[in-house]
């Protein structure tokens, strides 16, 4: 999978057109990442149909919002008759994770010569699948090829997800419930094996374990509107505190 890890060193990487690296990324995206996103966005197409929206509006939500949980939240709110401004605020809170996710992946892609629109394009592609794969694959590559690789990879995953949303529009109602359940299970299952598999040190796994344990606690304590933000912030900050202590001790 990591076909770029053995690529030429960064100074000679400029000789090849960025397009070649974008194609490499696109090639690597076909496979598990594309399958995962298809499975997880098929259900969104079904939701769009349930509320009487046209298929293209469902597909537009995948291409533009590019955030499965937020899309479920938006269409689910409409289904239950929630006022649209209230639904938008819920979407705003549930999408807060894109701020730290973008900040965290940007230094891997950025170099001083990159125009801002390159960064905005890369940021738009940030969602769970692309982010997890990017954080895993990009550090092993020469810096100059990371942007075209990430865009090639991310755009293929986004297009597959958009097409899957359209397919789901017609498919989901026809599917037995147990297979619909298996489709919905793909995102948490893929994320769990991917992150558990790429955690190189135990400290990498610590924010995952802490946030997972805090989520039901937070749902109980602060309710379903703010539980995600609370669990992620507290779990992540505690793990950061432990990491900082360890780094201090190692420096002494």
């Amino acid at each position, binding site marked *: 999978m990591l076909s770029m890890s053995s690529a030429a060193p960064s100074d000679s990487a400029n000789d090849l057109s960025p397009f070649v690296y974008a194609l490499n990324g696109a090639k690597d995206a076909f496979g598990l990442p594309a399958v995962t996103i298809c499975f997880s966005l098929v259900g969104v197409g079904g939701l769009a149909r349930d509320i009487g929206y046209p298929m293209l509006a469902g597909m*537009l939500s995948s291409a*533009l919002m590019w955030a499965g949980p937020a899309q479920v939240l938006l269409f689910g709110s409409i289904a239950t008759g929630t006022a649209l401004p209230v639904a938008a605020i819920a979407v705003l809170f549930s999408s807060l*994770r894109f701020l*730290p996710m973008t900040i965290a992946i940007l230094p891997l892609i950025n170099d001083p010569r990159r125009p801002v629109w390159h960064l905005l394009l890369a940021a738009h592609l*940030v969602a769970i699948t692309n982010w997890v794969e990017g954080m895993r694959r990009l550090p092993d590559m020469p810096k100059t090829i990371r942007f075209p690789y990430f865009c090639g990879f991310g755009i293929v995953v986004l297009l597959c997800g958009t097409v899957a949303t359209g397919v789901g529009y017609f498919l989901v109602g026809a599917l037995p419930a147990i297979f619909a359940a298996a489709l919905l299970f793909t995102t948490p299952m893929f994320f769990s094996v991917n992150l*558990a598999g790429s955690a190189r040190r135990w400290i990498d796994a610590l924010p995952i374990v802490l946030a997972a344990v805090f989520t039901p606690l*937070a749902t109980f304590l602060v309710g379903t509107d703010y539980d995600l933000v609370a*669990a*992620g912030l507290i779990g*992540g900050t505690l793990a950061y505190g432990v990491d900082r202590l360890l780094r201090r001790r190692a420096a002494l």
Partner: protein
Amino acid sequence: MSGWIASLEYATGGLWPYLVVVIFGFLPTEVWRVIGVFAGKGLNENSEIFHWVRFVATGLVTAVVAKLLLSPQGALAMIPLWGRLGAIAIGVGVMLATKRSIALGLIAGELALLGAGFLAAA
């Protein structure tokens, strides 16, 4: 506000669903990515705040996934909690036992979930 929205819905007719996706879906999602680009540009990769942001990002993604598992929507709710958590454990176990094959872990977890679903329905 709701009267204003209702008249906009009436005025835009068939275009309304697309406007809803852009105004109430795309804008509140994309704003964080755009802020992230401008907030992150000046940030040093080795600074303490960057370390913190990276941990919090992982925490927030995990919380979303944990919620999908613990308070599932739609069809996934028919699988009992032990089935959902057990399938995650089996998937991760198979991944670790197969030289970290993500594909095998994912397939094993999905099969375990289907098995739990059939058991629970029986």
